[in-house]
């Protein structure tokens, strides 16, 4: 059997354990590093609640297991499954809109009797997969019709999710689809046109926004307007980060977080706890991991061997970056408050499972490559 393989093609076993297990070690270690840092911050943010840490550990374990499982699936199979995943996702979103469960004022959940399930999570992966799938055989850069079709694939689920309403996820999904189009070679002229269109459409967007979303925008523009109401979160998180200084107040010593001044400190605003207790140095450490993960993801994309995997890998890596920048931008007061967690650090949510499934795909893409003769 070996003789039949051309000299350039090597058996996976010969390429080391990473290829046998379909694991990308640098990515794995960086993810583990972020998780450990995250657990430390969460331990402090959660008021030293070991129960909370155990539940987060269980969730992380599940997420890592999911990542390993997905990494075993070959990109070929992923590609073949893509249209099905997307169609099922769209149907589930429809189901949510029709009969979904209302939780916290938004209709995002679907009760599947066993687990409550958020179809929008699934779409975070399904949308870039679907766009990449659609462009897989196209001659790039995509032509007008292909761009239009790609646009429809993105906009339909994004709007459905925005309607739930879940603006954060909607933006995230739209940008993950957009990244596929952009990486596929979306013409600059068209990009300029779309940007102008978006700018022009902003007042229209205001018109369609919910009251609470408008309040968030107004609050973002001027948090001091209502310091004890809507502006409270952002004012307190800025105080937490700013008072942390270069080196922080020390682990478990953040007064803003330990004395309850910082709201949602275990979830969306956990970045402020990091900033307060570990200071600028701690934030640098976290971003060292984050940047490494993003760059590693882009590298995997550039080494991918076909259009589908290349576009998908690139989009997943960039979407991860969007996650980071939207959350940290929100907590530092650069962006309006949108309910997005800090990836790998914030407590709870199903998003971590989705996120790790994405990394599983990256690993799969990287470790299922055929070695080409050089």
């Amino acid at each position, binding site marked *: 059997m070996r003789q039949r393989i051309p000299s350039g093609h090597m058996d996976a076993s010969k390429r080391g354990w990473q290829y046998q297990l379909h694991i990308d070690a640098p990515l794995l270690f960086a993810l583990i590093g972020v998780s450990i840092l995250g657990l430390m911050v969460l331990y402090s943010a959660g008021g030293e609640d070991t129960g909370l840490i155990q539940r987060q550990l269980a969730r992380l374990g599940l997420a890592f297991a999911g990542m390993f499982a997905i990494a075993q699936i070959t990109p070929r199979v992923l590609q073949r499954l893509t249209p099905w995943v997307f169609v099922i996702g769209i149907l589930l979103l429809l189901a949510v809109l029709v009969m979904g469960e209302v939780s916290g004022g938004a209709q995002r959940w679907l009760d599947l009797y066993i687990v409550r399930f958020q179809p929008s999570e699934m779409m975070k992966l399904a949308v870039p997969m679907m766009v990449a799938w659609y462009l897989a*055989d*196209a*001659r*790039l*850069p995509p032509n007008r019709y292909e761009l239009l079709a790609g646009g429809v694939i993105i906009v339909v689920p994004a709007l459905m999710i925005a309607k739930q309403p879940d603006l954060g996820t909607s933006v995230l999904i739209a940008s993950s689809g957009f*990244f596929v189009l*952009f*990486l*596929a*070679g979306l013409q600059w002229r068209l990009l300029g046109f779309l940007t102008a269109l978006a700018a022009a459409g902003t007042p229209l967007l205001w018109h369609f926004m919910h009251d609470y979303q408008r309040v968030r925008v107004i609050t973002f523009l001027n948090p001091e307007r209502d310091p004890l109401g809507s502006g409270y979160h952002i004012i*307190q998180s*800025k*105080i*937490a*980060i*700013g*008072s*942390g*200084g*270069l080196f922080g107040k020390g682990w478990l010593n953040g*007064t*803003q977080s330990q*004395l*309850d*001044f910082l709201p949602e400190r275990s979830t969306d605003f956990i970045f402020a706890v990091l*900033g307060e207790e570990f*200071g*600028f140095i701690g*934030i640098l450490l976290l*971003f060292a991991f984050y*940047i490494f993960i*993003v*760059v590693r993801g*882009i590298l995997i*994309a*550039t080494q991918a061997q076909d*259009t589908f995997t*290349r*576009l998908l890998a*690139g989009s997943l890596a*960039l979407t991860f*970056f969007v996650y980071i*920048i939207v959350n*940290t*931008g929100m907590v*530092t*007061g*650069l962006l309006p408050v949108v309910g997005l967690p800090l990836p790998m650090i914030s407590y709870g949510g199903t998003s971590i499972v989705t996120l790790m499934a994405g990394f599983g795909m990256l690993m799969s893409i990287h470790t299922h490559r055929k070695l080409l003769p050089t």
Partner: protein
Amino acid sequence: MLRQLTLKDHFLEYHLFSSRAIVMLLFCGLLLLVLFSRLLYLQVIEHEHFTTLSEDNRVKLRAIAPSRGLIFDRNGIILAENLPSYRLEITAEQVDDIPSTLAALEEIIHIREVDRNRFEKLLKRKPRFEAVPLRFHLSDEEVARFSVNRHRFPGVDIQAGLARHYPLGSLGVHALGYVGRIDEQALKTLDSSNYSGTTHAGKTGVEKSFENLLHGTVGLEHVETTAQGRVLRVLRRTPPVPGNNLYLTLDSRLQADVEKALIDYAGSAIALDPKTGDILAMASMPTYDPNPFVNGIEYADYTALREDEREPLFNRALRGQYPPGSTVKPFIGLAGLEQGITGYKSSTYCPGFYTLPGSSRKYRDWKRSGHGTVNLDDAIAQSCDVYFYDLALSMGIDRIHDFMQRFGFGKQTGIEIQGELAGLMPSPGWKRARRGEPWFPGETIITGIGQGFFLTTPLQLATATAALANRGMRIKPNIIQSEQLAGDSTLLVRERQRDEAIAMNNPAHWDAIIDAMVHVVHGERGTARRSGLDSPYRIAGKTGTAQVFGLKEEEEYDAEAIAEKLRDHALFIAFAPVDDPQIVVAVVVENGGSGAGVAAPIARAILDSYLLDKES
């Protein structure tokens, strides 16, 4: 053929992708640059600003109220003390539904209407997370009942504190006064930072007038709190300085005897030491118990006190203004001697009435049949009105006014209890200014017997009498004997103040007047001779019966026939022992009828209590 056109150029696509990936990475880098600039701005440039804000969040200043100084009588008997007391407080932010919580609390703790109203008022203007008191002075039973049920009431707590208590109840209440909760009006006059932890302040009497000594200085605690206001630990503490203890000049035993002597009447009695001006007793009757006022008296009880016809809340000793009646005769007589208008021997015939020259209007003597021929000594001892009508008319109102003012009539005595009234020493100038009318000679005549516009307070009478007893040395009535700094056993004795002495051209005039006053009590025909019987010490005194309303010329005064409200006030001034005066007494009994019959026996009882029991 279509297939042919769409053939992919993998090499080109790879380069396209790579360039796009680099663009995206650069874009990401740009975003990171913005984010890190922001972080540097927050964490380095504005670090101090946010540190300050964070400290402001975390550290709260908490005022610690000083404990109020205690009040004792001159012998160290406690008059005002601080007792441990439990109050029920509610932190509104920690209570879901206040009305239902109140309803549930009501089942185990008695909540009055006043409590509820005060609570609701305080609730509206309190800072976030600050507890608001609902009930004060919980009984031990209520504390126990609440403790058992505490789990049902999150946000409701019992706080221990000190509460003012007056162990002797109503005794001397008009001098001592009481404290009450600081209301919005009081807040304006008090130093808000020094009172930031204080709930009560003096409302009347010594408690109010010496508020600055009794209160002390507020302490401060820097405490670390959670966002919910829960205190975690004390970071720094400046202890409060307790208020000074005050020793009053009052003798609570004598005060009790004075109040007992006056128990059936509305009136006032003052006893003071003529040498020092120390007020030994200061009674205003009827009295009331100050203790319910400390934490808000029940509305119905307060209304009852206010609407009581006998006006228990009225401080007669300082604010009651009465015509002095015949008690002014020794002073008028002294004026006559001093000014050479009358002499020891010169006498006047008293037919029972007096008429102004050229007028037929009769000014009657209290004795219809007249006193016959009387000299100054007789006129004082028997209280002959006609003698003084004549003397007053000869002297003229201006000289009477100027002389009487030197004894303090018409002026505040300067006692350090707020609210004292000045009485009224009339003069033609005053009448013109206040009434726009000229002065009539008839008004001079009745001023000579302490009637007409002439008004004095009981305290004024007492200090004027002290000046007589001291033969011209004028003391300022004094209520504080000594002060005691917190945590220090030494007593700082207060300096006694004196007013300008009254000098006589001939000091023998003093003796003549004092002798006449002795004859009032011990003389054969003295008006108060019954009160002087069996007295082991010699008393100088003067009776007074002041008309409340004027009788017509020919009308007969019939005490039985007229309403009690219109009956004459009974007065008596005295000092004893005559040779070495140790006590001066002034008694005013409203509508008592007769100075000799009612006021003099009361004065005698006071003198006995002080001079006889003191030695035993």
